[in-house]
């Protein structure tokens, strides 16, 4: 009786060798044959384990589509460096989740300023002027009275510097007057203290001039010179002109005095004149600066 051939018999008869090629390993020509897949690395083909992470630093595992999507979504939401074209370009927001390029100003010194009319809400603009000083005049004081004509147009304030103002004889007083106005339009107070005398506060009063200092003189009992400064504020705004004067008197015999005068000038016109006069003849230098 003939034994029927099984499927295994048929295969056994047909396969007489298994040869593995990369990434498979093993194989054989008889008996039990084992075939394996080698691990994949960056230098050889092979089996690779999936990794569902965007934080892994493995060099032998492969990313899942999920981790690739996570990385893609992150990159897709990032600002592309291709938005920048040139030196000085700025990336600014123009709307929700929208970035635009703002090119650098073509003029040196321009500053970035806010402008809601611009698509980016910003623009380059010249800095606002202000604070700069311009020397308008240098006057050498002489005689008893010195009338200095000023052109204040274009300036907000005046800065007056007194440099070593002397009186030719003792008990000298130094005064100021705006616009040659002899009406009672200088409303001022003064705090003062000089060596050998008690501190003194002069309550605000309406006068035709204002006292800058006293006790100037040539003997050792008096102060030989004063230096200091005076701000005259809003010189073209007739309703708001104010002044503040700070001077220090001194001599070489330990005499000194401090005077702080402040007030308003009830003006009917912009400041165009400052008259500085003394009870005695004066000398010294006065610088007037326009302040924008």
């Amino acid at each position, binding site marked *: 009786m003939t034994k029927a051939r099984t499927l295994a018999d048929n295969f056994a008869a047909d396969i007489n060798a298994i040869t593995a090629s990369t990434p498979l390993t093993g194989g054989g020509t008889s008996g039990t044959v084992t075939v394996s897949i080698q691990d994949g690395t960056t230098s050889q083909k092979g089996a690779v384990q999936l990794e569902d992470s965007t934080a892994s630093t493995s060099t032998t595992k492969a990313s899942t589509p999920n981790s690739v999507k996570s990385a893609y979504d992150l990159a897709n939401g990032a600002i592309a460096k291709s938005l920048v074209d040139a030196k000085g370009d700025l990336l600014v927001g123009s709307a929700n989740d929208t970035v635009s390029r703002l090119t650098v100003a073509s003029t040196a010194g321009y500053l970035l300023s806010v402008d809601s009319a611009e698509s980016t809400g910003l623009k380059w603009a010249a800095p606002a002027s202000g604070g700069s000083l311009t020397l308008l005049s240098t006057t050498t004081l002489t005689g008893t*009275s010195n*009338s200095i*004509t000023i052109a204040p147009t274009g300036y907000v304030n005046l800065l007056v510097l007194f440099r070593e103002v002397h009186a030719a004889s003792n008990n000298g007083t130094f005064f100021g007057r705006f616009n040659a106005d002899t009406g009672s339009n200088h409303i001022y107070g003064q705090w003062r203290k000089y060596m050998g005398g008690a501190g003194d506060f002069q309550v605000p009063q309406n006068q035709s001039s204002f006292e800058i200092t*006293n006790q100037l003189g040539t003997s050792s009992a008096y102060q030989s010179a004063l230096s200091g400064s005076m701000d005259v504020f809003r010189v073209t705004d007739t309703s708001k002109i104010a002044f503040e004067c700070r001077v220090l008197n001194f001599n070489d015999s330990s005499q000194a005095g401090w005077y702080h005068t402040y007030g308003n000038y009830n003006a009917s016109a912009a400041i165009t004149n400052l008259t500085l006069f003394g009870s005695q003849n004066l000398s010294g230098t006065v610088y007037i600066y326009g302040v924008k």
Partner: protein
Amino acid sequence: MTKPTIMFHNTETNEIVEREMNAEELAQWESDIAYYAAKAELAKAEAEAKATQKAALLDKLGITEDEAKLLLS
């Protein structure tokens, strides 16, 4: 006697003119000086009166100024 002088400095043209004060300017200057001189005299008189009153009070109390300061400290 020489009159006080007044100097005009036009800073726009840098023109400087110095001359004696005219009658009006002189009167204003004298008025200014007299006012401040009177004010200074008044302040001086007030200070002296205050000092005199203070000295009289201390004398009445029979103590010195330093002792008064010590009492009040």
